[in-house]
């Protein structure tokens, strides 16, 4: 069984203004459905699925992010992947929807530290001051489509399509080097 590499960035002295880390894999699903079935499918998956784009519902270790009027992104611990798929399948007859596993489509980076927000501005055109903690958005980082989660004032997560990830990572490393050099 192969796994992702985890080349956690070692910060000497712990003074770097921002750190970028590969995150462990999680179960990811793309959920699409009509409003009429939002409640039923949500219940099957353990959520009250949010309606406002950017809002995140959380249930234990699971999170459901509203990406569009009919689209949600679900993150959960890896071990729950099959249970989620089964719950969706169970609700399908009554509440048709599309629940597609995309666990391996993306990988995630954690970007943390006092300069985390500043680092993201090297390639993300959004006004990150307006992204409240706990919310997330689909946006771009340079030319790559990403989902950006704000987990705290100084804590962000970036979901990137697998083949775009090295490019995004290289940019983050370049930006991190600037910030560490005080520029």
């Amino acid at each position: 069984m192969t796994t992702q590499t985890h080349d956690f960035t070692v910060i000497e002295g712990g003074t770097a203004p921002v750190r970028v880390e590969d995150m462990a894999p999680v179960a990811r699903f793309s959920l699409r459905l009509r409003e009429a079935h939002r409640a039923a499918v949500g219940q099957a998956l353990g959520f009250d699925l949010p309606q406002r784009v950017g809002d995140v519902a959380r249930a234990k270790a699971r999170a459901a992010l509203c990406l569009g009027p009919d689209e949600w992104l679900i993150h959960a611990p890896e071990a729950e992947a099959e249970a989620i798929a089964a719950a969706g399948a169970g609700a399908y007859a009554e509440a048709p929807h599309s629940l597609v596993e995309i666990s391996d489509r993306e990988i995630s980076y954690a970007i943390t530290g006092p300069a985390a927000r500043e680092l993201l501005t090297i390639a993300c055109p959004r006004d990150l001051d307006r992204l409240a903690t706990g919310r997330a958005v689909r946006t771009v980082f340079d030319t790559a489509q990403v989902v950006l989660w704000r987990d705290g004032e100084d804590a962000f997560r970036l979901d990137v399509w697998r083949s775009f990830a090295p490019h995004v990572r290289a940019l983050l490393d370049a930006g991190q080097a600037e910030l560490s050099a005080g520029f």
Partner: protein
Amino acid sequence: MSQFRIPGKGRVDHAETVSFSFDGKRYEGLRGDTVASALLAHGVHLMGRSFKYHRPRGPVTADSAEPNALIGTSRGAGEKEGRFEPNTRATVQELRQGLVAESQNRLGSLSFDLGAVNDALHPLFPAGFYYKTFMWPRSFWDKLYEPVIRHAAGLGRAPSKVDPDSYASRYLHSDLLVVGAGPSGLMAALAAARAGVRVTLVDENPEMGGALLSDPGIEIEGRPAWDWLSGALAELNALGVRLMTRTTAIGYYHQNMIGLCEKLTDHLDEIPEGAPRERMWRVRATRVVLAQGALEKPLVFHGNDRPGVMLAGAAQSYLHRWGVRVGERAVIVTSHDSAWYAAFDLAEAGSKVVAIVDTRATPPEALVSEARARGIEVLAGHTVTGTKGRLRVASVTVNPVRGGTVGAARLLHCDCLLMSGGWTPSLHLFSHTKGSLQWDAESETFLPGRMTEECHIAGAGRGVWGYAEALADGAKAGADAATALGREAEAITPDVAHDRPGTGESHKELPTDRKSHRVRAFVDYQNDVTAKDLRLAVREGMRSIEHVKRYTTNGMATDQGKMSNMNGLMIAADAVGKPPPQVGLTTFRPPYTPTTFGAFAGYHRGATFEVTRATPIDGWAEENGAVYEPVSLWRRAWYFPIGGEDMEEAVARECRAMRASVGIFDASTLGKIEVMGPDAVEFMNRMYTNPWTKLAPGRCRYGVLLGEDGYIRDDGVIGRLSDDLFHVTTTTGGAARVLNMMEDYLQTEWPDLDVWLTSTTEQWATVALNGPRAREVLAPLVEGQDISAEAFPHMSVAECTVAGFKARLFRLSFTGELGFEINVPARHGRALWEALMEAGKPHGITPYGTETMHVLRAEKGFIIVGQDTDGTVTPQDAGLGWAIGKKKPDFVGKRGLARPDLVAEGRKQLVGLMTEDGAVKLEEGAQIVLDPEQPLPMKMVGHVTSSYHSATLGRSIAMALVEGGTERMGETVHVPMPDGVVRAKVTSTAFYDPDGDRLKL
């Protein structure tokens, strides 16, 4: 220290000297100097040669508008090489230890320039000379004229080394962006920030303050200007305002997007590790205050370009900011009050002011009496008719003007001539927004008119003059912006003492008593355009200022006409005989000042030039010597050479091995779309040409996707996993486009369908296993599915386990051999590949790349969308008519296919071509004719789309689109090539195993 530096004066650090060189000579300057101020402190005015006539030139400004003092800069040789930059403005480049500067545009030395022969020959180079002079004889153009002109053209020399610096970029959001940190900009920022607005204040200079830095005698709120300035900056800092110096607003784009270029290291002695040289900021500001100030205009007279002739405002800046007197004996020539103050300050600092020459008959009485009190001679109602001095001005000729008549000349000796033709509001950024300009008759200048963006303009940038008014205007703009942002704001107007208000008048070229052919009065210093050139352009028929500009090149140099546009307009308007607004003003375009390519490129160079997508199996390919080719954004393994194989040898080996035993191929880049929902089958029926209703779960089918026009857009194998679930594959390059097209139809045409699309391209790694031994290799690794020929026939799909990984297994073939495609979650892609390589060892499993894949499919006549199709090929043209569901009521492209021209006879159809000599390979893209003897131009009936050497068949094969191709089976066609005509026979595209027996294993 030089005689021109005043000890202790200015904002430079007199305690720290900085050493640099100019044209090989070492000089000492002070920390805070620019190259220009440091050289001026040594009495050096000659800093360059002009572009066309190689006339000696010195700085005329003290800022970024400088047209003359352009230098090449570097950090010296050795490891610092690669940092040479031409056309750096000496007035902007700050001194750093070891700076190496050189003058430009000279042949020989700066003081003796062989190119100056052009100056003596100037009658040969009138406006538009290149349209006139070098036309005949025609044969001279290539050998003589063009090489000579190319050698002479251009500013400076291009760097020859790769730039070792890095360049950065950031996005920035601000409620209010204030451009320019002079009095108005500072007040705007203060007013808004005090009201709680998130403000960014930028200035191109190393320190903020604008004109206040050059006018320390002003008092604001009872404090000397510089004290007030530090207080204001401290308050802005405390209010959380983002203060950015050395940052130029280069362009103003739609919806308040402003580009800023920040210089980070050019002023530093050493470049810190990891520091980028420049950073491009893309700012989205809710409101913008433009407080760019005004640019001083030169006066246009004979000899106004001699070193030592300088704008009066620049001399005042050199004095107060850098403690440098620009000369011992100054003559001032002006049409504006402001130059009088420069004269007074210079006199105060110890220079002899020989005379103040004012073109106005009656300058303000207060100024005149102050001049007299200082013992300065005042020559009102005078003009300047010439200057003398070889490399530096030595004298100036002035004449009284009475009733339009130029009187007797008088010679004034001087070593600097300070001029002011009044001030032009800097409208560049406002002009980028396409806001309209309005002619103000009173001040004879253009002012900002109707706004197209949410912006405010304050201070001298909109014609406001004098510190009290500029400060008040800035405060109002800031308060207005804050109010527009929903804040309560107050515009506090500070008290000002010792203000220096003023007015002036505008001129065309100054009146003269010289014969007109002997007048060299420069309007555009950088492009060597004279007043006479402008008048000539009008005489030769140019009426619009846009035409005059292009004919003369006035305002077309790197300074974007900052000095020359208004003077050029006044002269052209006079020549045309219309008021200036009817002749118009040329358009200012970004960038405001020259900006490096590096700043625009940012991170997009080297490894991060562009996204390079790699599959999960890419690492294995790299370790095993794959040669890559780019396919859309992906890099794909092209072939796997062994030993010294070239591509042809490697591909031949890979092909033979696959057909003889088994080959393995990374197909992960194929686009994959999950189509799920109760209406999935209906959606598929409508999108693709094929019928899908009767495709049973567990089976797959080759699908063709058309545009509405009936032409092939994409293709791929589609598996039905359950009644409501399809696994669609697309071409590698078409993945995103096809998903977008499907979403588009779903959302706009068929919102009633209960079906949803999800891209799973990167969820799966896909490995294709092909060849007669494929099943033997695969079978031991499969659990949960019998893959025997009976249980799992060609075009099957199943969910099972392969090598221990959850998999979607397809049986299909793009090679004509028994084939499987195994999809596993992407993270397991490489492990699956390695497991198959291991299992295939006994069978000599051979990895192959995209080139072999292309040959193998061509041997079977399978098309590649985009290679054998070009957006004008229908399924029938491509021999895929069988893939159209004829009984379906509709599908995308159905009506398009019925268009008369799509059902007409003689369309180009895809056929096979076999050259008569199998050793000859046709060239892809080669044109096909029926009769090679026909006269030129021949009628071309088609072209070759794919062509390969087939190791399997031991000869070349090709596919081609040929008019009426399917009717020409067996005919001979001709392919004219540079080294002769190639004869080829039209055949079926199924070159190999046409009956498909090999799939039935």
